[in-house]
């Protein structure tokens, strides 16, 4: 097994040079030291996140409300996709430890097989994170809405599809009576943010006015995230009243009543700092995963060329394995503090 000293050494020899008191090679020891310093960086970031979260009075976004979508399936799957990502990263950690184990038996074929599996898992994770970011940035179909009493609410439910816009007043591009069916969602959200939607009528970019034809929303619930004069934090408004209040804001014709998605300036899901920390910490972790995949590929090339076989040991695989497990380890904590609690 790794790291076991095979013979007893008296302490004079042990600390007198030549041998390592830790019974480990220089490279592996340095990898551990690097990982400790990197762990301190991540520890510092998560501590800063916790500090901000605890001293903030507004509602912090809740994981299962913020991340409830699956690729191709839509909404209503709280935390499932991120759980799948976590599982993929754990599995790729397992394939890595199997590659290390194969290396200890000088089984080159085994090392190659498991390292390829690890690299695939790593790419899958990075791709998933890109999807998650894109989803987080674009936001939900409803957005976060400011109600009449000044409170702000996130919206759950099934968004009724936009069918078309029927032009009632001609502009630079569209003629009266024209039915617009393309790029509806994008134009609609832009108009809502700019306050160009009033009483079911939308003013488009070219100055034309059109009637919005939209299917009914289903199961709408408003959850208050910033208190107003009437509603308190975490109040829930359901059913017909929810729909009435939501569309009162949408149709008010006033700008900035609704926020769609999150960026460094505004955040649909709750407190602004959450978005900053989300981008920075998951981004920094994603960068680690990406560089881990690159390092794994470089080492895999070395394995394929027989470099480590000639050397007589696969310690390079073990060292990159340490880094890869560390990336998994960090994700375990990010998963808990960003998504679960």
């Amino acid at each position, binding site marked *: *097994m*790794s*790291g*076991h*000293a*095979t013979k007893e050494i008296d302490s004079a020899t042990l600390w007198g040079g*030549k*041998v*390592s*008191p*830790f*019974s*480990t*090679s220089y490279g592996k020891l340095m990898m*551990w030291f690097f990982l*400790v310093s990197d762990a*301190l960086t991540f*520890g*510092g970031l998560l*501590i800063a996140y*916790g*500090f*901000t979260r*605890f*001293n903030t009075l507004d509602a912090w976004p*809740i*994981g*299962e409300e913020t991340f409830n979508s699956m690729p191709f399936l839509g909404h209503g799957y*709280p*935390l499932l996709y991120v*759980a799948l990502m*976590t*599982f993929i990263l*754990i*599995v790729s950690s*397992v394939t*890595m*430890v*199997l590659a290390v*184990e*194969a290396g*200890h*038996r*000088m089984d080159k074929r085994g090392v190659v097989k498991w390292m390829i599996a690890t690299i695939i898992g790593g790419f899958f994770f990075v791709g998933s994170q890109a999807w998650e970011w894109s989803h987080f940035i674009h936001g939900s179909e409803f957005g976060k809405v400011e109600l009449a009493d000044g409170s702000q609410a996130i919206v759950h439910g099934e968004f009724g599809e936009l069918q078309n816009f029927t032009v009632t007043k001609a502009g630079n591009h569209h003629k009266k009576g024209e039915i617009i069916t393309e790029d509806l969602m994008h134009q609609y959200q832009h108009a809502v943010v700019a306050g160009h939607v009033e009483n079911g009528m939308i003013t488009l970019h070219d100055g034309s006015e059109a009637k919005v034809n939209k299917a009914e929303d289903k199961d709408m619930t408003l959850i208050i995230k910033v208190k107003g004069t009437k509603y308190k934090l975490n109040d829930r408004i359901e059913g017909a009243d929810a729909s009435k209040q939501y569309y009162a804001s949408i149709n008010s014709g006033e700008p900035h009543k609704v926020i769609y998605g999150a960026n460094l300036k505004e955040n649909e899901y709750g407190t602004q700092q959450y978005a900053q920390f989300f981008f920075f910490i998951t981004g920094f972790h994603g960068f680690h995963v990406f560089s881990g995949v690159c390092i794994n590929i470089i080492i895999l090339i070395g394995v394929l060329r027989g470099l480590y076989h000639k*050397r*007589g*040991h696969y*310690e390079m695989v*073990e060292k990159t*394995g*340490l880094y890869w*497990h*560390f990336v*998994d*380890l960090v994700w*375990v904590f990010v*998963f*808990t503090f960003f998504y*679960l*609690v």
Partner: protein
Amino acid sequence: MERDDIYEYSLDTHHSEEEGKVLRKKIWKVTAILTAITVVEVMLGAFIKQHDSIWPLVKYSFIAMTLVKAGYIVLSFMHLGDEKKALKYVILVPYIIFIVYLIFILLTESNYVRSVWESHAI
């Protein structure tokens, strides 16, 4: 590649086919434990809401489960449990002391800042 002025520790890590079998079994066992913990976490997260009265308990169990997972990854996957005791403690002890200290600072300072926000609310 062999040098006689240093001891080649990298060669100590080799093991036989039989030992490998035992090790692989252990790896799959740890995999099963990590997966089970993740499944439990997601179930709890999806079904118990943050305004439920049981939530604080769930929250602390999340943190406990995370530490169990971290322990398995570090001690088993990263083989730190198999390294010499001296190395194990050189890695773990300073880090844990420092992080525990930072968590203490986090809690006291953020509670203070929060109380200031609350008492000076606009």
